């Protein structure tokens, strides 16, 4: 079983890295680039038996370590 | 049918003659793994085959030299039972292909060279050369290299104290990233790489091995083509966090008494480190690749031997001391594995999965590597440039402002503010001066460190350029009050198979050697980087010099900032108004012409010794050597550093104003001095001295010209940040 986790900055938290990426895209000639937000992507191999158990465990991982919930949100996908 | 076709060994960078030599040594065809080992060991990068003959001519000895070239780094005595350990090394090609990781791993590699010898690294420096500012790749390369150097050095916690950065079109396709590290060790606890004692264990520590950088060493020994971007996968990735742990673990282990020999795995990895250790100690090695910690699965012997994964070391331990060492590395959470044993066979036997993957004699590979006497020619000297033929298109101060805001003379603050130059708490003089000064912890002593080279002089006259590079570093150290002790050289040139390039190399070595002899600064370590050219266009010859000097009392160091108002400013040395190859000629007149300024080493020595003595006696209270851009640029830098202006009362006499102001005559300093007898002191010492003005106010003033410090500072400080914001 594999957990795929996206960690992104919460809305409202200034994201200068995202801004710089947007600026770079514009200067490369891509038009129509709106707001850019960047984050982290983490993959974890798990041996849990059920998807629900994995979901719960990974959510705890996110709260305790993988995301700083003061500034970050997380989204978890479990692939069976 | 044999797998060893000419295409295969050509792909490994070996010539047909070299392949024949392999057949002679082995008495059979090598297998692919063995061929890989030969190709790395005999690459220009590892074997110095084109340069060896000439490097032998450099002076390398002095009573204070503890260890000269040939080890991981040079070692000099700095008194009180302490030693300074240092070296400079290039990471040019990897930095061009992937600037962040290339520069970062360059810093990592040179740090390992220094702490491998038992020294705690205390300072990093770097010499950078980029292509023309208008070249489309330059901005991206500057940004990547600077953040890579900072990213690595800042994390390991070693201050990056300066260096130099300049731009020229000849580096468009071949940037230079030369990194230097200086460390401090106990003089009686220096660790060397010669492996001895058949039966002793060979231990691998640090990071795991992956498929990084396979054939990086051969990449660094081949000219670039337009397809070089395809070589990207061979770039290795640095991990400064692991390096920091490796520094602490190695230094902790070195405080015990269990290491026989130690060597870092630099370019060419496990191959070159084990061969070098065995060859120096006259032993054989039996290595078992199954014991090498691997990061990836199914790696072949070929890949294990040629991987350039970073942050790894090889060491030989005294019998029975395995546990002591293992405990320390486990504490620091680093891999530790016994990978082999020394033998008395003189052969390197590599085993994998119970089979012999390679079986090679050590000495023929390591010592009998090819040595070439490549043909060389001396380029005819350029015609001289006469000041009368050089225009002064505007008032001198307007020209000064242009020069101070030009790419090579502008403030490099944008760069060094991205480097932690304060960590360790011993930084006496920060970046931006003539030399960095770093206190030796728990003593009154300090080391002064500088790097320099003027490639345009080297192109015009390699011998004079070589002399000048050494003389300028010597002058930089002198200007802060330090006694210069020794240098490291990083010789960056084009393709040595072209006689005119080889001629530059030979000439530069001659000049460096002459300056080292007269100025008593032996070469204790160094590195050669050849093939810095793309499609037949070579870089300017760039023999970068890193120099280290000693201050017995750090409180006596002086800086370049005027120490106050109302002080006389003296020019020491002779001014001839030499405009050939000057920055003025290039930046203002758009001409890269003329002879390099002559370097008179005896005069250099006499004037420098006087300046240093008077700094030591507390007479000279601020000092700046005059180099790129000439007298007025140096004066402007002193004023900006202090935020104090100056009224200039002297002039060039029979020289035209622009020649006096911007000529790049050598062996000159600007100083302020305490007391009224400075001129008399200089005259007694037979050193030319002229009072050229008095400090005060908030502007430079010369006759009817005025340039405010604010206006000058804006020109000087804004160019680089504006360019990078591009």
């Amino acid at each position, binding site marked *: 079983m594999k957990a795929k986790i996206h960690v992104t900055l919460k809305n409202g*938290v*200034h994201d*200068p*890295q995202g801004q*710089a990426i947007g600026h770079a895209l514009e200067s490369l000639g891509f038009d129509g680039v709106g707001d850019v937000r960047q984050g*982290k992507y983490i993959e974890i191999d798990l041996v849990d038996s059920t998807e629900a158990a994995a979901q719960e465990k990974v959510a705890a991982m996110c709260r*305790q*370590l*993988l995301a*700083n919930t*003061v*500034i970050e949100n997380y989204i978890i996908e479990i692939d069976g | 049918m044999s797998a060893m076709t000419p295409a295969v060994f050509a792909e490994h960078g070996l010539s047909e003659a070299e392949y024949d030599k392999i057949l002679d040594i082995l008495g059979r065809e090598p297998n692919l793994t063995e061929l890989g080992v030969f190709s790395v060991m005999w690459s220009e990068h590892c074997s110095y085959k084109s340069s060896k003959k000439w490097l032998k001519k450099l002076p390398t000895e002095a009573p204070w030299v503890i260890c000269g070239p040939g080890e991981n780094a040079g070692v000099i005595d700095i008194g009180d039972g302490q030693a300074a350990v240092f070296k400079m090394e290039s990471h040019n090609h990897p930095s061009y292909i992937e600037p962040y990781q290339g520069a970062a791993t360059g810093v990592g590699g040179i740090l390992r060279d220094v702490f491998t010898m038992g020294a705690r690294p205390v300072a990093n420096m770097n010499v950078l050369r980029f292509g023309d500012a208008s070249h489309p790749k330059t901005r991206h390369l500057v940004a990547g290299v600077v*953040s890579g150097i*900072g*990213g690595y050095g*800042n*994390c*390991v*916690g070693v201050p990056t104290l300066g260096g130099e950065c300049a731009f020229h079109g000849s580096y468009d396709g071949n940037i230079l990233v030369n990194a230097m590290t200086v460390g401090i060790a106990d003089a009686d606890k220096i660790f060397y790489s010669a492996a001895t004692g058949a039966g002793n264990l060979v231990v691998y520590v640090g990071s795991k091995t992956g498929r990084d950088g396979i054939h990086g060493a051969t990449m660094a020994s081949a000219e670039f083509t337009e397809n070089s971007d395809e070589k990207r996968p061979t770039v290795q990735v640095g*991990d*400064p*966090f*692991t390096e*920091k*742990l490796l520094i602490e673990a190695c230094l902790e282990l070195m405080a015990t008494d269990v290491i026989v020999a130690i060597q870092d795995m630099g370019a060419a990895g496990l191959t070159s480190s084990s061969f070098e250790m065995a060859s120096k100690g006259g032993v054989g090695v039996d290595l078992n690749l199954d014991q090498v910690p691997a990061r990836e699965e199914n790696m072949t012997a070929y890949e294990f031997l040629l991987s350039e994964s970073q942050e790894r070391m090889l060491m030989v331990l005294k019998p029975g001391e395995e546990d002591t060492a293992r405990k320390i590395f486990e504490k*620091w*959470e680093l891999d530790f594995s016994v990978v082999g044993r020394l033998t008395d066979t003189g052969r390197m036997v590599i085993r994998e999965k119970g089979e012999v993957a390679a079986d090679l004699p050590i000495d023929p590979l390591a010592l009998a590597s090819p040595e070439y006497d490549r043909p060389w020619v001396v380029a005819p000297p350029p015609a001289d440039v006469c000041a009368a033929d050089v225009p002064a298109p505007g008032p001198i101060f307007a020209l000064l402002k242009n020069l101070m805001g030009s790419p090579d003379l502008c403030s490099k603050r944008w760069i*060094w*503010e*991205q*480097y*932690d*130059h*304060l*960590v*360790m*708490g*011993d*930084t*006496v003089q*920060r970046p931006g001066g003539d030399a960095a000064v770093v*206190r030796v*912890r728990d003593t009154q002593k300090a080391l002064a460190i500088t790097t320099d080279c003027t490639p345009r002089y080297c192109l015009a006259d390699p011998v004079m350029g070589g002399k000048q590079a050494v003389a300028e570093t010597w002058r930089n150290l002198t200007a802060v009050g330090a006694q210069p002790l020794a240098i490291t050289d990083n010789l960056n040139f084009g393709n040595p198979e072209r006689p005119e390039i080889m001629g530059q190399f030979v000439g530069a070595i001659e000049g460096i050697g002459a300056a080292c002899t007269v100025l008593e600064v032996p070469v204790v370590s160094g590195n050669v980087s050849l093939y810095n050219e793309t499609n037949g266009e070579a870089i300017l010859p760039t023999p970068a010099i890193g120099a280290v000097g000693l201050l017995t009392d*750090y*409180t006596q160091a002086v800086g370049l900032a005027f120490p106050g108002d109302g002080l006389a400013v003296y020019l020491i040395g002779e001014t001839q108004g030499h405009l050939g190859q000057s920055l003025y000629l290039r930046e203002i007149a758009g001409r890269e012409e003329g002879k390099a300024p002559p370097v008179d080493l005896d005069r250099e020595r006499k004037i420098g010794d006087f300046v240093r003595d008077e700094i030591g006696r507390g007479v000279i209270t601020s000092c700046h050597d005059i180099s790129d851009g000439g007298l007025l640029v140096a004066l402007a830098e002193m004023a900006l550093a202090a935020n104090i202006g100056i009224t200039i009362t002297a002039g060039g006499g029979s020289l035209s104003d622009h020649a006096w102001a911007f000529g790049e005559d050598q062996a000159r300093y600007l100083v302020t001095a305490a007391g009224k007898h400075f001129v008399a002191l200089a005259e007694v010492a037979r050193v030319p001295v002229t009072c050229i003005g008095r400090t005060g106010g908030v502007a430079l003033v010369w006759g009817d010209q005025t340039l405010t410090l604010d206006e000058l500072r804006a020109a000087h400080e804004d160019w680089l940040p504006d360019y990078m914001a591009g």
Partner: protein
Amino acid sequence: MNSAVIVFPGTNRERDMVLALSAAGARPVEVWHRETRLPAVDLIVIPGGFSYGDYLRAGCMAGHSPIIREVKKQAEAGVHVLGVCNGFQVLTETGLLPGALLRNAHLKFICKDVHLKVENNGTPFLSGYESGAVMSVPVAHHDGNYFADEATLDALDGEGRVAVRYCGPDGTVTRYHNPNGSQRNIAGIYNKRGNILGMMPHPEDAIDKLLGGIGGKPLFDGLAGALGPTS
């Protein structure tokens, strides 16, 4: 007085901190992160560096190491805790201090002298300064951009918990003098009780006239004066 300096893998300013504490007579000992017990001390310092490479987030993994549980316990018992740079990041990651430290707004590592205005000198940490004093000390960080939500910022301001703010040489607090984009120019904050201070700048690198000035020296002398002598 006695002090403990916590060392994580990747900490790199412990030597600077030990030097500054020793000079003030604070008798520092270094404590390795795997220890589960702290010696009896009056001050615990979490120094700067890149603990665990600052991988994942600056200060994150250190915030979960065994010794931090002990630091929390001691802090609750009233022992003073100073976190500088990476130490400040660790303290926010553990929740001992509110907010978070984001990547600098200009995205670059920055090492230079800054001026700090002393906003609240009513704790041992800043007792060596006059209220409103301006000190010159260096910063050296990549992630020093202080962030908290508006309610938290208002609480910090309202409760006098902003310890120091980035300012100009004359003490004026402007955007121009903000080196990293920190909200309200915040350079350092206290916890509610006032026994924990986290700050980004490095007072330990400003204790010698010839090595960058003495702007940070009153911090250490003040701590030694307020917390010592004991044993």
